[in-house]
């Protein structure tokens, strides 16, 4: 029986243990990308050298060939200064749906763990931070394989609680990461937009590269409620009464606009904005993003 390209969310949710789940996703990544997605993640270009038979043709710089009529091969060296930081939002809103098979936090943790698995496979240094109103747990970056277990432990033991303050969390992380690094942030962005942007700006100010995974549940994305109800905020306990069917179109439009605005504003800061809905296989999300990223490089 062939291995499925991407393990679907429900199957993934049934898998006990974040480590195994992350490996399943990572396997999907290998199948999906057919080559290491790791290039361009935490390595940097070093120099050109003349092509020699046996070299990987993918490394030939065709633009240099066009200019000089000679074959040159790009050489990379590991960016020892670059650190891969995984920042996972663990505020109360990430616990949605509370009685669902896979909460947003579970999904984000799966994405983060899979990314960590891949990065560590390539001997990158990977660190982890969880945050809500501030930074809650930090695992400093390491490149050893055993470090994966430490990351998993923190993710598995983190409970979703508290309000979200992205600015406070990201500003703190920016202070703790003086050296240039790559930040992958997994959050639902339910914070004041100004605070979100301020936090990201603060992080970007440290020359860090940022990828923001905007994680939303399918119910948040499509608002499929058939009747009206009183909705209570998971973080602030504020209540609002809305009529599901009548309200849906307005809500969906407003959310689409919010995401469009984030994409534009974050793009202005060279921050990759990746909207994610939790009913999509995590491996597919990563493959899609990394594929685009590779194409851009």
């Amino acid at each position, binding site marked *: 029986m062939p291995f499925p390209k991407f393990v679907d969310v429900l199957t993934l949710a049934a898998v006990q243990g974040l480590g195994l789940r992350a490996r399943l996703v990572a396997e999907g990544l290998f199948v999906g990308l057919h080559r290491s997605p790791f290039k361009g993640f935490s390595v940097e270009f070093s120099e050109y050298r003349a092509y020699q038979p046996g070299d990987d043709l993918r490394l030939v710089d065709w633009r240099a060939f066009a200019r000089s009529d000679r074959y040159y091969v790009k050489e990379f060296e590991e960016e020892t200064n670059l650190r891969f930081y995984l920042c996972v939002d663990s505020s109360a809103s990430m616990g949605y749906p509370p009685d669902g098979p896979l909460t947003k936090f579970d999904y984000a943790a799966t994405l983060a763990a899979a990314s960590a698995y891949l990065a560590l496979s390539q001997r990158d240094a990977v660190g982890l931070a969880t945050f809500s109103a501030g930074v809650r747990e930090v695992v400093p970056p390491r490149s050893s394989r055993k470090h994966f277990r430490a990351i998993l432990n923190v993710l598995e033991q983190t409970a979703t609680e508290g309000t979200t303050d992205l600015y406070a969390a990201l500003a703190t992380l920016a202070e703790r990461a003086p050296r240039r690094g790559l930040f992958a942030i997994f959050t639902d962005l339910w914070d004041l937009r100004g605070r979100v942007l301020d936090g990201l700006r603060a992080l970007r100010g440290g020359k860090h590269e940022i990828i923001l995974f905007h994680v939303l549940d399918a119910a948040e994305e499509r608002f499929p409620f058939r009747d009206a109800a009183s909705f209570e905020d998971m973080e602030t306990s504020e209540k609002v009464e809305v009529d599901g069917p009548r309200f849906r179109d307005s*809500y969906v439009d407003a959310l689409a606009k919010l995401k469009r605005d984030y994409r534009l504003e974050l793009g202005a800061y060279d921050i990759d904005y990746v909207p994610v809905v939790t009913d999509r296989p995590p491996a597919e999300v990563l493959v899609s993003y990394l594929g685009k990223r590779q194409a851009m490089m």
Partner: protein
Amino acid sequence: MLSFLNPLYLLLLPLAALPFLLNLIKRRVRLRLRFPSVQLLKIVEERRARRKPRWHEILLLAVRAAVILLLVFTVAGPRFTPGGAAPPRALIAVVDNSPSMTYVEEGETRLARAARYARSLATGAGPDDLGVVLWTGARAEGDWQGLRDATATISAPPAAEGDIADALAAAKFLWSAAEARGRRPELAVITDMQRSAFEDVDALASALPRDVDVTFYDVRSEVGPLWNVAVAGFTVTPGAGDFFDARVEVRQYGRPRPAPLEVGLGRVTAEVPAAARAAVRIPLTTGGRYEFSCRGGYPFDDRVDVFVPETAGVECEVASATPGARSWDAALAAAGCEEGAALESTPGIFVLPLSAWRESSRGRALAERGAVVVVVPDDAGGGRFDGVTTVLPLEASPARVSAAGGVLPHAASAGTFETAGVAALKTTAPWVTAAATSAGVPFAVTRRVGKGEVFLICAPTSPRYTNFLTSAAFVGFGMDLRLRALARADPAFAPARAFGTSESDPTAMAQEDMLRLFPHAVVTRHAPGGRGRASVPLQSPLAAAALLLLVAEALLAARGVRTPGSAPVASKP
């Protein structure tokens, strides 16, 4: 004033609160959901609230409540009676007690109905309302008294000729009295609208005070025939083989019956359309005694035994009229003939007593020259044979009549006629069509003699039928004779036009005449009720309003307006 036919339904009025109550209940049971993006929900909801004010939702609830209210009112049968809290009344009831009011319709005389109407005038009367009852056929005088008292002990005096003009004059005088001042003058005229009662009204009607409310209560029945006479007859002709065909014809005058008639000879029946003139063919297997019947509401629902000889070309005619129909002269007058003219005075018609027919050849001679001869029984000719029918073989000479029995020899014993009498006729005078009634209803036998016709009126010789020509039972028969005679004498005379199938009562006041005399009067066939004003049913407008509101509710719902708490259960995605 608003009243209700089914006021008990008003107990359902609290149902109008149902939309509001349901709304409250729904609010209580609403499911609460924990949700992460309430921030965004709030922003969107505020925007929506700005665009669609809350009063739309309240309006929706109000519309639903109004629909329930209207439906409850509709089933309660609301009626609006104009007037409301009116001032005290000074009502004068003029009751027509002319002879035409003795006419019986629907089991009571018009006069009895008029008295009933007059008593109804006091329904809903207040203690300050005054009234007087005046009779047209009596001396028109009376005194004011409480309206209830004035109508409580009303009883109709004997019918007498009169004119409502006298009553109007008395009414004017009464309204000018001190007691009537400060009260609203009302005039209620209860009549069968016969022209004869309105002859001298013109001047007085215009002299009535302008503020008088005039209502004419027409007591004529709407359901019974106002005026109807029928003549049924048949002619026997040779049919196929040895058979005969009887062509049965029914003529109706005045207002035709709405339902078809069923005529029959023996066991064979046929339906005659309810038209002014209609005929059907009934096959007969042989001559002999048949029972002729005509069912459909006429007196000759009684069976008539008819002897059909085995000779073709015989005719028989049976005339009858509705019970209570007008007298002979009145019917002729209604047909456009000279009022009061008797059959005897009609040119070409001769009326002879049976004894004269028997003892003289004058009648036969007249008939042979083209005259119409009507032979009526009399004491001399018919004798006093109680309960037995007079039969005459028309073409026979008095001698042959005598041989045939003349007046048949049957005794007082019932039933001998059908056996011995008819059997004797069959053997001795086979060319005679004879008829007899089994229930004492008169009939006529006709036979062409020379150029003319002879009609023999046959009837039991009871004192009731001594005056045949004015008997209601012979109105149609006599009228037909007279019209035919008039048509013969004057080719321009058109009986059909004069008589036809008119449904109107030519002796009654036409609507336009009433409007001319009393431009502001109300003419109604409804009995007085309440304060004498007809109430207006309000069901239809209320139902229409409810329908409109339902459409409005649907439009509001289509525009996305929902009640504030219209979601009892918030389902999960």
